[in-house]
């Protein structure tokens, strides 16, 4: 399985990537903002899942979801928002724009793994079913 971790904070990218590696995700690409993430998708092929922060400079996570969902070839990609943004209205807005799941910061490592299991991640193989 391949994952894209998008967050302007390097410490948060490190935490998320560490948890993903812990459940067998082999390939992890990181991006610092939505625009960089779009470039990754354009040049590096699509990951199985993108884990995306909301508040980021240049292009935020919500804008990224809107932009990514306009590209038909990228539709199979699961998008999980991983953000401190916790207003109900904003969560609904992100889901409506095409985010598949939503995890509120702060989260424990287990919580991220639980959400991945909900999405069908097989923790033995690191693959999404």
């Amino acid at each position, binding site marked *: 399985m391949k994952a894209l971790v998008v967050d302007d904070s390097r410490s948060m990218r490190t935490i998320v990537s*560490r*948890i993903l*590696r*812990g*459940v067998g995700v082999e390939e992890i690409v990181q991006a610092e903002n939505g625009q960089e993430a779009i470039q990754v998708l354009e040049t590096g092929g699509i990951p199985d899942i993108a884990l995306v922060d909301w508040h980021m400079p240049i292009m935020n996570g919500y804008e990224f979801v809107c932009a990514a969902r306009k590209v038909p070839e990228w539709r199979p990609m699961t998008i999980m928002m991983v953000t401190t943004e*916790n207003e*109900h209205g904003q*969560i*609904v807005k992100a*889901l409506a724009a095409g*985010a598949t*799941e*939503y*995890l*509120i910061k*702060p*989260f*424990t*490592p*287990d*919580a991220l*793994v*639980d*959400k991945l*299991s*909900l999405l069908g991640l097989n*923790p*033995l193989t690191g693959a999404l079913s």
Partner: protein
Amino acid sequence: MSAVATDFSYLQQLVLNRSAIVLSDDKEYLVESRLSPIARELGLEGVDAVLERLRLTRERALEDRVVEAMTTNETLWFRDVHPFNALRRTVFPEIIARRAPYRQLAVWSAASSSGQELYSITMLLAESFPQVMDWHLSLHGTDLSSEMVNKARAGKYTTLEINRGLPATMMVRNFDRDGSNYVLKDEVRRMTTFRQMNLAEPWPTLPKYDLILIRNVLIYFDLPTRKKILESAARCLDPNGYLFIGSSETMMGVTDVFEAATADGATFYRLKGKQ
């Protein structure tokens, strides 16, 4: 920390195989505190000795203790995923078709803790089977701890708790913000009843349930008590009903009143010879 890395991967594999719970790498710090009491009780030198004995003997009872110690307090929404997939795709469609003439349905979460299991079922029913919302629903939760019963009744959870396995769409539909917490909407809470009950003591009169969940609690009891609990559960299960125990738990060597069935990646039990 005396447990070396290879011991931890062994433990991760064991917990995963037995409970379908993933111990992430950063849980290694828990090993010492969670397993030392077992070492002391068994008169072993330390955590390493416990793991060594596990590896050599593969003692089922010791495995149970270790898995439980490493996963305790795992109260989460839709725990283990598969049982809920089975409820949604196989178990509830069957029960509901059979119960439609009577328009009633009874579910018991027998170790309801802070309520996540029963509320998960309630939300699942509301979302996938809206036709039963005006039936006579008995959605019961019981727990040994009255503190847990009160917490379940309040239906109030922190961000850390709300994050554990609850699909985002269900969260926004069923919860309101209350300060830094999340509270279940009244209409969901009102559908449920929570009561204090000790499974090891004589049981009160209970209705016949279509579905009973006694998950991740049998481990706390000795074999004769487990047998008594499961056989009592058999008596308050509808002849066509379903019983779920924890993914890491087994009926083998405990009682033979049930027989196992599987669907959607989950194992559940039905009364022997009744289908």
